[in-house]
């Protein structure tokens, strides 16, 4: 965003989120959800769609998290059960002010969440909330938005196939910007006059659509999808902010872990042996593993101050979240990194009574972490030589 702002200082940026930004309703999840709302406010999001995840604990719990965060929320089809009226603003109008004395124009933004007939949550003023048909609700508000706006955007927390059907059934939407199930657009995906773009998940993708009103008579759109890898430099202020959040989370997790540790039974029951125990018999394999990226997988979390974040730990240590698995770097240093037992399974029993039959592994061990979001370039056959143990490995 900074680079675009530098490159195009007179181009207004309209920053949007398609919804389902909230974490799980846990103490750590609440910290993250509040932090994301605060961050979106700081960044200047112009509209944020309300997804099902935002409403897991009902309207009041969500609104309490939004307190102090200036984020405009939209949704056409989260409605009160009694009145069938939207709980949030069904749409917002955003004035895009152009430089050079050119007239401003209006962008109308609606929001929609996937139809879920089982959804029933507590709503405002002791009401109940349900999810109405996206098609019906968009059809209800689109003519009004179309009249008032030059560009109409629908933020969609729905499957891309449903987005296509919606565009077909309700013509007149210029853009459906969505996210669902990790799907990421790799090209313009038109349906009639509607362009459909999807932005992956986990905040790893940023969609960019440039609008050109040449002579104010005909507008064109050019889109890009930015995979926000380390190539994109951090904004210093946001980096400071995320570090504060990470520190808060780490302290919270450490306190919780300590309490859990006190209640835990003895480590003797732990199913994990640790890499050193494996190396006692499988020295060559252990030495070869020490040179792999798997052995260093925890380093990046340490560098990012995320060494106690369970969402990250799962793929960077061994047995995170499992009984007897990784607790923290101090309590379980033998399980730091993606060790032998990440691929071969818990090995304490095998270490105590070595026998054939333990440790067979295959691609299923890899794809839990090397998925499209975390490891988009993953190719099993290209990656395998980086970790496979050489000829002469003991079996």
């Amino acid at each position, binding site marked *: *965003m900074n680079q675009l702002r530098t*490159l*195009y200082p007179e*181009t207004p*940026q309209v920053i*949007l989120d*398609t*919804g*389902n930004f909230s*974490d*799980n309703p846990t103490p750590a999840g609440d910290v993250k959800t509040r932090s994301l709302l605060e*961050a979106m406010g700081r960044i*200047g999001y*112009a509209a944020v*769609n309300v997804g099902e995840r935002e409403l897991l604990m009902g309207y009041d719990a969500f609104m309490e998290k939004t307190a102090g965060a*200036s984020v*405009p929320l939209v949704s056409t089809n989260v409605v009160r059960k009694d009145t069938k009226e939207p709980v949030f603003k069904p749409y917002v*109008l*955003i004035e*895009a002010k152009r430089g050079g004395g*050119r007239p401003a*124009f209006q*962008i109308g933004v609606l929001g929609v969440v996937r139809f879920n007939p089982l959804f029933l949550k507590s709503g405002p003023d002791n009401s109940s909330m349900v999810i109405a048909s996206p098609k019906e609700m968009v059809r209800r508000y689109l003519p009004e938005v*179309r009249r*008032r706006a*030059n*560009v*109409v955007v629908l933020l969609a927390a729905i499957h891309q196939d449903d987005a296509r059907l919606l565009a077909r059934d309700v013509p007149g939407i*210029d853009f459906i*910007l*969505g*996210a669902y199930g*990790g799907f990421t657009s790799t090209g313009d995906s*038109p349906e009639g006059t509607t*362009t459909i773009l999807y*932005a*992956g998940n986990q905040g*790893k*993708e*940023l969609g960019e659509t*440039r*609008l050109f009103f040449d002579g104010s008579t*005909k*507008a*064109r*759109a*050019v889109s*890009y*999808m930015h995979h926000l890898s380390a190539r*994109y430099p951090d904004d210093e*202020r*946001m980096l400071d902010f995320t570090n504060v*959040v*990470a520190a808060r989370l780490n302290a919270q997790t450490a306190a919780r872990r300590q309490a859990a540790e006190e209640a835990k039974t003895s480590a003797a029951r732990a199913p994990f042996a640790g890499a050193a125990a494996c190396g006692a018999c499988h020295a060559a394999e252990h030495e070869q593993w020490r040179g792999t990226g798997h052995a260093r997988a925890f380093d*990046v979390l340490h560098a*990012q101050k*995320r060494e106690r974040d369970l*969402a*990250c730990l799962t793929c*960077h240590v061994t047995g995170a979240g499992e009984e007897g698995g990784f607790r923290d770097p101090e309590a379980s240093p033998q399980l730091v990194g993606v060790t032998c037992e990440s691929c071969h399974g818990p090995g304490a029993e095998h270490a105590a009574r070595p026998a054939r039959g333990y440790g067979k592994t295959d691609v299923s061990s890899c794809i839990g972490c090397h998925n499209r979001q975390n490891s988009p370039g993953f190719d099993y056959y290209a990656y395998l030589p980086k970790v496979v143990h050489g000829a002469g490995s003991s079996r």
Partner: protein
Amino acid sequence: MSGRIRAFSRGLLVLAAYGGLFAWGQTPPPVGPPPKGAAPQEIGESFRSPQGALIAPGKAPDASLLFTGDVLGYVDPCG
């Protein structure tokens, strides 16, 4: 990402007060992907930024829509 707070809310309040007066009062221009014959060196082509470039160069747009979604509680990438 930038931490600069922008005053969209003020604009929205004004819009709420004045309603449709701010609409252009003309048929909105159509939008969509660029036609095949468009000068690519001017406005570029969707999903085709020059090799290695973080930001595609080209003519300044009239507005940029930037969007995220399904963030699922990820405040920051794991690394």
